């Protein structure tokens, strides 16, 4: 299994950046997810790693070997793409056998290995059919089988579940995760679905506008977003963000509301902005509804989800924040609700640079 390193890798089409210079290390056996909205350069990044797209700058190494200008076939990778890219004129068996036959395996060996993967993915009964006759899910399985049968050094997957319906995605997601754990293969997985990213990734690379926004574990990008983009993009709904002013340890916002900033971030805030404009962020589950809470709001709406209620709270008539509350209690529309925030889960952002302001690490 390979360790993949990108050093300053970039891609320009004309003078337009599809991917701005990025650094990324993908450890051997790691499952890395590239996550971002449509058009942010995920596919381009993956294609550069595969060698199907030439870089316009930077270097790519596999296990320390420079492969920046190597042909895809010299990189020992498998690529599963969104629209499967199966050989339409070949049967499923021949599709899966293709990489084996291409390297000249004997007939018996091909048969054995195809049968083995087919059994793993439960497509044994489809081997004599052409892919055109199959459902999206089965085609995806065949594409996965073709990738798996080679036992490559790394798997690259570009939204492999994008074309499947919700039910089946869940199953396939689990299947891919299992295969990954069994084979311990280095995997780079592209998706624009953050739930998928959270569920599958050891490491998530959040991209936007051709740029890497944050690299971190699912928990990192969820609880400690590096900037406002990540804060808004990750989570559904995204992080609640309140604009206000910071003055002497107090965050003032809305109509005369104030929130006392946790003591341990004050030094960082004062260093970053002194006194002045600040953005405060918190996840819905950081909200504690309690009559003595410092923040006043009015219930705008509330929806019941399976195990909890999602409150939409109107703060000072302009901002609606989302809060998670127990199902136990009912909240009438327009009733007053006061709440507090879990000080561990309050985050701050610089309004101009949009970067997170984090409390200083005690060293």
């Amino acid at each position: 299994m390979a360790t993949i390193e990108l050093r300053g890798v970039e891609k320009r089409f004309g003078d337009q950046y599809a991917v701005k210079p990025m650094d990324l290390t993908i450890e051997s056996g790691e499952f890395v997810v590239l996550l971002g909205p449509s058009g942010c350069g995920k596919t381009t990044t993956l294609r550069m790693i595969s060698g199907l797209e030439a870089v316009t700058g930077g270097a790519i190494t596999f296990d320390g070997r420079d492969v920046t200008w190597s042909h895809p076939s010299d990189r020992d990778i498998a690529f599963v793409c969104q629209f499967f890219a199966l050989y339409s004129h070949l049967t499923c068996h021949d599709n899966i056998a293709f990489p084996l036959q291409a390297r000249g395996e004997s007939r018996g060996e091909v048969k054995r290995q195809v049968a083995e993967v087919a059994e793993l993915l439960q497509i044994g009964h489809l081997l004599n059919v052409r892919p055109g006759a199959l459902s999206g899910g089965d085609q995806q399985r065949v594409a996965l089988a073709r990738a798996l049968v080679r036992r490559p050094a790394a798997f690259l997957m570009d939204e492999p579940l994008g074309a499947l319906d919700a039910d089946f995605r869940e199953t396939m997601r689990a299947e891919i995760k299992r295969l990954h754990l069994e084979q311990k293969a280095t995997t780079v997985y592209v998706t624009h679905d953050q739930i998928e990213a959270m569920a599958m990734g050891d490491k998530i690379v959040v991209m936007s506008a051709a740029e890497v926004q944050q690299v971190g574990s699912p928990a990192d990008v969820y609880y400690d977003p590096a900037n406002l983009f990540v804060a808004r993009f990750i989570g559904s709904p995204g992080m609640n963000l309140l604009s206000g002013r910071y003055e002497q340890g107090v965050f003032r916002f809305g109509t005369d509301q104030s929130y006392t900033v946790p003591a341990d971030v004050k030094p960082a805030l004062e260093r970053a902005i002194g006194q002045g404009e600040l953005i405060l962020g918190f996840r819905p589950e950081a909200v504690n509804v309690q009559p003595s809470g410092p923040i006043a709001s009015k219930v705008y709406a509330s929806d019941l989800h399976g195990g909890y209620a999602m409150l939409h709270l109107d703060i000072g008539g302009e901002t609606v924040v989302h809060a998670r509350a127990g199902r136990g209690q009912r909240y009438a529309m327009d009733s007053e609700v006061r709440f507090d925030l879990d000080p561990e889960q309050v985050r701050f952002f610089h309004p101009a640079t949009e970067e997170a302001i984090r409390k200083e690490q005690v060293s």
Partner: protein
Amino acid sequence: MSVSPTPRTRRPLSDRNITLLFIMPTMVILVLMNVYPLFYSLYLSFTDYSVISAEPPKWIGLENYTTILSDQRFWSHFAVTGRFAFLSVGLQMLVGFGLALLIREKFRGSGLVTTLILVPMMLSPVVVGVFWRLMFNPSYGIFNYLLGFTDINTAPEWLGQPVLALWAIVIVDVWMWSPFVMLLSLAGLSAIPNYLYEAAAIDRAGAWFQFRRITLPQVMPLLLIAVLFRTIEALKQFDLVMGITGGGPGDATEMVSVRLYREAFQGQFDTGLSSALAYIVLIVIVAISNLYIRQLNKVREG
């Protein structure tokens, strides 16, 4: 004096009538120009009849057919035609598909090159035939000169020897019609989605493996269509033969349709016999086409 306007109601045509109105002229022309001659010539093929005689057609049953099939010379015409079709279509496929592979990648001026290659196909076959006859001429033709034969005594006499004469027609036919095969091949090649080659590169397939497992099967349906069209044309080959050899030397390049022409429009104007010969050619072509089409469907369905 008052004129009361009489209300003239115009009944709109029904959809069905409009349909008929549009189809009828075509149908009438089709019947007059195609269907009637087809069946009338079928009838004539069973008669003793000449268009230039005053005698009406006389029914003689299968006699025309037995005359043709028992005459050794007709069999040799079929053999020549078959040999010509095999050589000419085979070479056209090789040259045409080869050219298509070469100019498949877009390069500067590839549009111009493609157009230039297509020129022979657009010329009139009679003109082509006459010009090539001049080029094949052993004393002043340029063809031998280009091949490097400058001594008139050792140079091959293309139109004078039976085997070479057939090859001469094959060469001209290949020169003229390979571009057509190339055009069809290009259409087939450009319809192969690029992602198949990307997938093959990822699967670490070499160039030859990619050609065998992706390119060839993907263009096969269009190649078979090219073979079908060219075979039908080759079996009907007439104008090039007339232009280049006129069927000679002797009757070495006398193909079926040339003989058909002679029977129908020269000497006795034997309309009955030539109708029978035309039907034999038609049956052969339909049979061969059917074989090809069956093969084509097999390739499509796999």
